[in-house]
């Protein structure tokens, strides 16, 4: 039992990382109609910045994080203004390939700015462990779970309570008409990119202490986040988030409790997800978009 609790809690923690990344992907998708393949790379870049300040310049983590957030916001704004806005003719697939270009650009820039070596990053809460039903669990892990949930609830509340949610949905659905309705779609898109990159950074800052800050350290998180977005459905914000936690829990259960689980657990889970997708092709929480003729 203790074992299971441990597996479950750890899954929740990683679920937070996936959920934040999924939210980042959804936010861009909903406003720019673009699958942002560069989500992980942009998160990586800003995490590198924070890690460099901490490890090379000797800053405290808490002093470095605001700089990272500012950088994420600036990047988001720049990417929107310099690239995405001008790509209206490129169509959705074209824009996706632009994000692919962004991957190349930032993979190229990172070593130039931060050197080729992998870095490490301290945890938010450097030490302390509590025991939950016989399972050791660090304060940091608890913080990650709670903080992740806090961020997401704040976002949901903002989206629900204000017109922002509607503005986001109309921007995605038909930008020109949204503007005729008075929706400042450019601001919406720009803000979405900025927030999305900040979310990626937070996901990166949470993940990095458990692995290392390398060019590819968030790729895994991104693939799981992609899965979560389609399993949960692009229609809602909460769907992908719930799916992210669900996938994380299932993945660990498959891997721990199945024979040869660490080898075949993941492909098996993928097959199961494919099956779920087959029966819920617009995501568990999504509805089929009707096209009436």
């Amino acid at each position, binding site marked *: 039992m203790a074992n299971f609790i441990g597996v479950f809690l750890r899954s929740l923690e990683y679920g937070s990382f996936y959920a934040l990344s999924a939210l980042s992907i959804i936010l861009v998708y909903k406003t720019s109609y673009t699958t942002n393949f560069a989500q992980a790379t942009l998160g990586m870049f800003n995490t590198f910045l924070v890690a460099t300040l901490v490890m090379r310049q000797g800053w405290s983590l808490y002093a470095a994080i605001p700089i990272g957030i500012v950088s994420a916001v600036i990047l988001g704004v720049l990417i929107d203004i310099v690239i995405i806005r001008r790509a209206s003719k490129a169509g959705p697939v074209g824009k996706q390939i632009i994000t692919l270009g962004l991957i190349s650009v930032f993979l190229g820039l990172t070593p130039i700015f931060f050197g080729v070596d992998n870095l490490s990053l301290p945890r938010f809460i450097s030490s302390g462990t509590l025991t939950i039903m016989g399972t050791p669990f660090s304060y940091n892990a608890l913080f990650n779970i709670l903080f992740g949930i806090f961020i997401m609830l704040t976002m949901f509340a903002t989206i629900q309570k204000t*017109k922002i949610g*509607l*503005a986001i*949905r*109309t921007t995605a*659905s*038909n930008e*020109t*008409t*949204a*503007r*005729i*309705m*008075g*929706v*400042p*779609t*450019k601001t919406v898109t720009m803000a979405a990119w900025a927030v999305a990159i900040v979310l990626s950074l937070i996901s990166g800052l949470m993940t990095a202490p458990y692995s290392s800050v390398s060019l590819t350290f968030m790729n895994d998180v991104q693939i799981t986040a992609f899965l979560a977005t389609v399993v949960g459905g692009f*229609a809602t914000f909460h769907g992908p988030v719930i799916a992210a936690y669900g996938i994380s829990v299932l993945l660990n259960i498959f891997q721990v409790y199945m024979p040869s689980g660490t080898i075949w657990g993941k492909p098996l889970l993928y097959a199961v997800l494919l099956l779920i997708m087959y029966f819920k092709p617009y995501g568990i929480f999504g509805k089929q*978009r*009707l*096209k*009436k003729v």
Partner: protein
Amino acid sequence: MSKEPILEIKDLEVHYGPIRALKAINITVYEGQVVALLGANGAGKTTTLRTLSGVIKPSNGTILFKGERLDKLAPESITSSGISQSPEGRQIFGDLTVEENLKIGAYIIKSKKILKENFEKVYRYFPVLRERKNQVASTLSGGEQQMLAIGRALMNNPKVLLLDEPSLGLAPLLVKEILEIVNTIAKDGVTVVIVEQNAAQTLKIADYAYVLEVGSISKEGEAHELMNDSSLAEAYLGTVTN
């Protein structure tokens, strides 16, 4: 009735790439007027409205709204200053519900009270929208979508209302109703610019009309005068006989 010009279009030219869709047109609209834009398919009527709402930027010429330059503003700023449009092809948000579509129409309205009033007003004009308020807009019938598009444009208490073929796809009874609604709104002081194929009926409620022909204004005048202009009737409007 006609006091101040509320909209002044001067030497307006619009290009789509190298295609010149409007060639230096001049239109003046006075406050509270209903102005009709008529003309054959592809004459440039929609282009004129799209330029007014800022979706297309003119390559030449100016547009003044209450004496202020409008043509450099972004569409959302133009909307905020009180110009509202029911665009060609309805352009409703298909995956939003009817109610959400209307809500977005009132995006610039801050007051909850006015919002509520406007909902009531639109539902009064189009009771079917109230019945359907939770239906996903893309599944509405063609006419219902048209009502939604018009209703949405009314949601933000516009000073100037731009209507692009509002009667398209509406049943005869409703066509009449729409024109009556336009009349009512105009009486309340809203200025209306309306594009219609159905020239005869439109001229009945319009104060003034312009006829566009391949990007230029070929005729203009008081609506009742144009109604009796036989050359016009034949050339662009189809034979207008009652």
